[in-house]
């Protein structure tokens, strides 16, 4: 059962080949048996999962068919789940039991999905390797000496190791697409505002966006049908009609124009990744697409721009963790100032503290114009590059990452080197566009990702292009050994 996609599992449940309780128990057994190798889950909610599965089976026997009725899903531990620990990968929230559900969680419940538990992640979603988690690093199922990517590394590893048919993730600078690429799965970051951020612990509010991490583009479409839509509880969620993401999956690609940004194929790109991306583009030409070279001239500025904007927003968002109302509090505080400064020093890890300090500096009197305002101006230049490109092309493609998965510990002491791994994904968040990563081959026997970038709210086009590629190739069906 664990080899099946969600589309296949839904058929199996419909035809009574297995029940949701059997399916859920199978996944719970696999997690128990195998997750010691990967550390992809922080919390497994076995009892609740089986109760939800039982309810789904009952509903199904009475002829009710919610979109994902009886399908087990894992959720990144950044989504608040009522009555269940929601840690965000941090010591700060190790004791935090969410008092309410995130909108995304509520939507999956309404769709009849079963929640297996909460997946590991970089602390407060800050990281590209999952090594900053308070709960220890996640290991890449393809090679357990390497990182799974981050920050949604637990979700990516759980799907790759078949410890969940699909998982939710969030993406602030590449945190769905980069781990999807490094773990050989499919991941979609929707347009900013497409999916509600309510109950999703905030990192950088103008960049954060939730999306699906799956085994196929078709499964990502099934999850998007559940996740997307306006939410009155999120004042930045988009008031825009949601299409049926499964409707156009099979549409012919003849006449589609693909833009290849020349800046994405320059120095720093691993040769085998470049080769796999070029081979994928060839496949798209076989499928009827035409290819055009384009330029996104401000690409290199995405890294500095992002590393001012994201930390600035983070420094404001994370000021709520004060040791007073919830979360970690230090022992025996001398006074209120000591309580704040020691709780935060002891409750946050190094990378989170570093970003709070950088953000505080960028926003402080005398430096605001030189850093924060400057970064916001450059952000517009980066967006304008894409707006101009989409006048000429329908979709942009390139590598998701410059390198395949690196070794655990290899970059963890050098933040700037780690930041540069996100060069191809950051600008998509800065511009607010939808982006996707799908498996496209191997480099050094490690999975590589092809990144697809669409115009605003054109997730359906990305899913269509990804699905057609997956019908013609089998990269997405490759699995790590030892499962």
């Amino acid at each position, binding site marked *: 059962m664990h080899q099946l996609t969600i589309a296949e599992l839904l058929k199996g449940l419909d035809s009574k080949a297995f029940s949701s309780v059997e399916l859920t128990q199978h996944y719970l057994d696999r997690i128990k048996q195998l997750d010691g190798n990967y550390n992809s889950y922080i919390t497994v909610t076995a009892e609740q999962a089986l109760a939800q599965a039982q309810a789904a089976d009952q509903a199904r026997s009475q002829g009710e068919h919610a979109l994902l009725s009886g399908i087990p899903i894992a959720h990144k531990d950044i989504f608040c789940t009522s009555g269940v620990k929601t840690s965000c990968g941090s010591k700060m929230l190790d004791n935090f039991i969410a008092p309410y559900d995130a909108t995304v969680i509520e939507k999956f419940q309404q769709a009849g999905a079963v929640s297996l538990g909460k997946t590991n992640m970089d602390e407060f979603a800050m990281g590209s390797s999952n090594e900053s988690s308070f709960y220890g690093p996640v290991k890449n199922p393809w090679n357990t000496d390497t990182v799974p990517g981050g920050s949604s590394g637990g979700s990516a590893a759980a799907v790759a190791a078949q410890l969940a048919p699909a998982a939710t993730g969030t993406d602030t600078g590449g945190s769905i697409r980069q781990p999807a690429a490094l773990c050989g799965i499919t991941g979609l970051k929707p347009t900013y505002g497409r999916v509600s951020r309510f109950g999703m612990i905030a990192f950088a509010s103008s960049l954060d966006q939730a999306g699906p991490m799956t085994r196929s583009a078709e499964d990502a479409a099934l999850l998007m049908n559940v996740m997307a839509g306006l939410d009155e509880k999120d004042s930045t969620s988009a*008031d825009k009609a949601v299409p049926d993401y499964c409707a156009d999956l099979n549409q012919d690609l003849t006449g589609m124009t693909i833009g290849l940004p020349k800046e994405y194929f320059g120095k720093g790109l691993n040769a085998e990744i470049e080769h796999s991306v070029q081979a994928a583009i060839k496949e798209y030409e076989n499928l009827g697409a035409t290819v055009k070279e384009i330029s996104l001239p401000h690409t290199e500025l995405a890294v500095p721009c992002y590393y001012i904007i994201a930390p600035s927003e983070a420094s404001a968002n994370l000021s709520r963790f004060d040791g007073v109302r919830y979360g970690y509090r230090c022992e025996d505080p001398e006074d209120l100032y000591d309580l704040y400064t020691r709780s935060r*020093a002891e409750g946050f890890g190094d990378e989170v503290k570093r970003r709070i*300090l950088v953000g505080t500096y960028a926003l402080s009197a005398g430096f605001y114009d030189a850093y924060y305002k400057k970064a916001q*101006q450059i952000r517009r230049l980066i967006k304008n590059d894409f707006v101009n490109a989409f006048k000429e092309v329908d979709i942009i493609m390139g590598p998701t990452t410059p390198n395949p998965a690196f070794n655990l510990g290899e970059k963890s002491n050098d933040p700037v080197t780690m930041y540069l791994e996100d060069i191809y994904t950051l600008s998509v968040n800065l511009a607010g566009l939808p982006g996707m990563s799908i498996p496209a081959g191997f480099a050094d026997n490690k999975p590589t990702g092809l990144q697809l970038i669409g115009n605003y709210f054109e997730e359906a086009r990305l899913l269509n292009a990804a699905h057609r590629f997956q019908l013609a190739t089998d990269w997405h069906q490759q699995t790590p050994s030892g499962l």
Partner: protein
Amino acid sequence: MSVEQTDIEKIAKLSRIRIAASDMPEVALRLNDILAMVDTMQAVDTTGIEPMHNPLDASQRLRADIVTETDQRELLQQNAPAAEQGLFLVPKVIE
């Protein structure tokens, strides 16, 4: 621009994060690495470019000013490190 120890002490105070003296050199090194990287922005002429706050240039939706939340004090205070009689407890602020 690079930061000295006194700058970091000021930022740490604004951030309400204690930094042990023994950690200071490492913190300074990493912050200066990051600031050196972001300083490449300064070479770009951004005269007349409107800063972008929201990727869709959208402004936030407002709702009617009516009470929608119910009282959930007890539920919410279950996560408090120290609470009594519906109040959050902190060290004495006024002598």
